[in-house]
């Protein structure tokens, strides 16, 4: 294998791995900056991927394969699905002031069981075949004209998935929303001291529910992007820990968007680099697996050094209770 191919593949694969992580982590940032623990990213992304894939499968007979509309239908379906499923978290955490860790775990477990079951049922109804996966194919890749010729960094702009640009746009808009707008100011106040917002005439419950819904929509988008690119189908294998890695990226990124972006890129690039090096050296799969562990080990070590300076939102995980002294 040529060294140039490897150098090309590392950034492209790294980006396609990092970007879905980033959008899920941004969803988590919305939610946790608002003071609600978000451990349900795994379940939300899976459910979003399911509804997205389901929309594609249902529309396929009408539009025909290869229709450019399918991508948008998948995205819309995933956002609506993730958002609706996140309402369960909102109901439990905001309305009933439940323990937020439990609520997150319930959503993860429920999403996995529910989507697997529903996929089989739908497949049986549509094709009379028992299968737990929706085949949706992978979206087209493209190469950005000028940027891709930059030495070294050009690799990032070759063989891109369209969704990667969508996610970068979401990241920019989210930064503006969180730090510059009225909603962002109120949202972060909910996470730091909800009593301040309440006394200033804001509505803590409503702000938090909106944050949870944004989180659900973004996590759903993340899920469908994974399904639409790397795996090219929806199946229970979508639950392979992306949501948890996104949580790690968010915490490591100190609940801020730019550091979280850097962490996601680090995860993505180390993963693709490890994989490519294994391929290049022609190692057996045992060693490949070992090498792929490296990014997580590095993360653990770095966390030891950085976590002291980390500052989670002060009111994170506390249900808002007006009367509490």
């Amino acid at each position, binding site marked *: 294998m040529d060294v140039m191919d490897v150098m090309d593949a590392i950034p492209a694969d790294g980006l396609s791995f990092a970007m879905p992580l980033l959008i899920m982590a941004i969803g988590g940032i919305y939610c946790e900056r608002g003071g609600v623990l978000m451990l349900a990213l795994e379940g939300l992304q899976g459910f979003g991927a399911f509804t997205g894939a389901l929309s594609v499968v249902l529309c396929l007979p009408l539009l025909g394969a290869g229709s450019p509309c399918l991508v948008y239908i998948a995205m819309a379906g995933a956002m609506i699905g993730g958002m609706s499923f996140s309402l369960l978290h909102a109901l439990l955490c905001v309305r009933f002031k439940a323990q937020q860790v439990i609520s997150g775990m319930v959503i993860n477990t429920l999403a996995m069981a529910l989507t697997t079951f529903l996929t089989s049922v739908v497949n049986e109804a549509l094709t009379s075949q028992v299968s737990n996966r929706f085949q949706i194919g992978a979206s087209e890749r493209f190469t950005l004209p000028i940027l891709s010729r930059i030495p070294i960094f050009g690799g990032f702009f070759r063989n891109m998935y369209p969704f990667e640009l969508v996610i970068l746009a979401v990241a920019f808009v989210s930064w503006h929303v969180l730090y*510059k*707008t*009225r909603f962002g*100011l109120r949202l*972060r106040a909910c996470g730091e*001291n909800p009593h301040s917002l309440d*006394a*200033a*005439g*804001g509505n803590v419950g409503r702000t938090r529910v909106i944050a949870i819904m944004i989180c659900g929509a973004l996590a759903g988008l993340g899920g469908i992007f994974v399904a639409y690119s790397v795996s090219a189908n929806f199946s229970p294998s979508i639950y392979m820990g992306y949501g948890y890695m996104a949580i790690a990226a968010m915490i490591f990124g100190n609940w801020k968007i730019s550091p979280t972006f850097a962490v996601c890129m680090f995860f993505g690039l180390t993963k693709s680099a490890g994989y490519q090096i294994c391929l290049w050296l022609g190692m057996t799969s045992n060693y490949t697996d070992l090498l792929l562990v490296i990014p997580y080990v590095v993360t653990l070590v770095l966390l030891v050094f950085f976590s002291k300076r980390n500052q989670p939102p002060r009111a994170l995980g506390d249900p808002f209770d007006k009367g509490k002294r």
Partner: protein
Amino acid sequence: MASSEYIVEFRGVTKKFPGITANDDISIGIRRGEIFALLGENGAGKSTLMSMLYGMYEPDAGDIFIRGERVALSSPSAATALGIGMVHQHFRLVPSYTIAENIVLGMEPVKKAAELFPYVDIGAASKRIRDLSKTYGLEVDPALRIEQVGVSTQQRVEILKMLYRDAEILIFDEPTSVLTPREIEFLMDVMRGLRESGRTIVLITHKLEEIKSIADRVAVLRRGKLAAILPASASAQEMADLTVGRPVSLSPSSSSLRARFRDVVLQVENLSVRGENGLDAVKGVSFSIRGGEIFAIAGVSGNGQIELADAIAGLVPPCGGRILLNGRNVTSDGVGRRTEAGVSYIPEDRQRYGLVLDFTVAENLAIKKYRRAPYSKSGILNRSAFRTEAEAMIARYDIRASGGAGTIARFMSGGNQQKTIIARELSTDSSLMIFVQPTRGLDVGAIENIHRRMLGERDKGRAILLVSLELDEVMGLADTIGVLYGGRLLKIFPADRTTVGEVGEYMMGAAS
């Protein structure tokens, strides 16, 4: 309605919480442009009444009239729209936000960048905040973050928050409880300025001298009921008696016995303690306390008092010097061993260090002796022993808890929380008791109760170390007064051979 004489009027307002009637049929009229004080013990219903005016609770019965019109105050934003603002006792600020962001929160001026992206216009807000701070003498830098500024500046931010919203009726909930004497004077000036600008101020307090110095009228609440409305020119004694519901003594020095000193209990030699900032907060302090003696440390806040008390209690290790208890060197002992050696500690922050707020009264009372029989046996707690003991202590120390021994500490008033701590600390048979700001934030009735207890324990022969910022308290209780200034013990006086003026001068460091 011909009641427009009043800008705010409560008519027959009642508010019930589970198990308690916080406000019972209260009718009060507040005139435009006056400073109206609400006086009452902790738990008398002052804050509840004002929370209803600020829309945080709705009354169960009765009506509230603003400017002569009956209003439904369903939320703080409804109250804000009617020109009502409130400075809460515990500030409602976001520590990581700038002062400007905290002030605009909930009323953000929004602009659009490129006609598309809305954003909060902090620049315009900061300009308005600067103008307001100039007008009312409330100096702040809008760009600083709340966590970078002190408590008195945070309070200014809360006041500016109300002014930014053009509030005309300003509610202050115990605004001086967190301030030093000088800051209190400053606040009083600000409040006078606000009254001059035509605003109406409601001041919730339990300090009589504040009412005497700035209020125009005062309403006294007692156990949820309106006891009386008086002009502020009424005597302090009358106000105090109405607050408590029986004649109280306002000056603490009413011990029947003269102090009879016994052997030295605590001896502190050349003690130095490092503060949180890494500098020496206590520098080479030496003194001793005898049994039957109240030794009071006077001083302005932040001169090393807390560090000194913590070091003697064993919470922080000293960086030099020795502490002898009944002749035994305890300098290197931890809190547990000092407790056994006979040290009781009533800390300043009673909610953080004195109690486990979510435990019951019985559990809090047993927290220093649960390891011994009969409270536990072979590692198994004996709950009924907790309860029996707690019920006896509740009766003996007059702790008022709605659910008896099973009441969660968080739901008790500050005075009763303090009584619980004092009951626990007195019930151990210790020879030295350390009281840090024991009456801070308490009402006259509770203060009197605690002062009486301290004098009683002194007369039983215990040594008492009192750290207090209230000079009146120091002068009234102490047998010996030490003045701490800049971490040094400037002077030790026998209390009967000094005056308030002299102690005050040493407190300012002038006499050095």
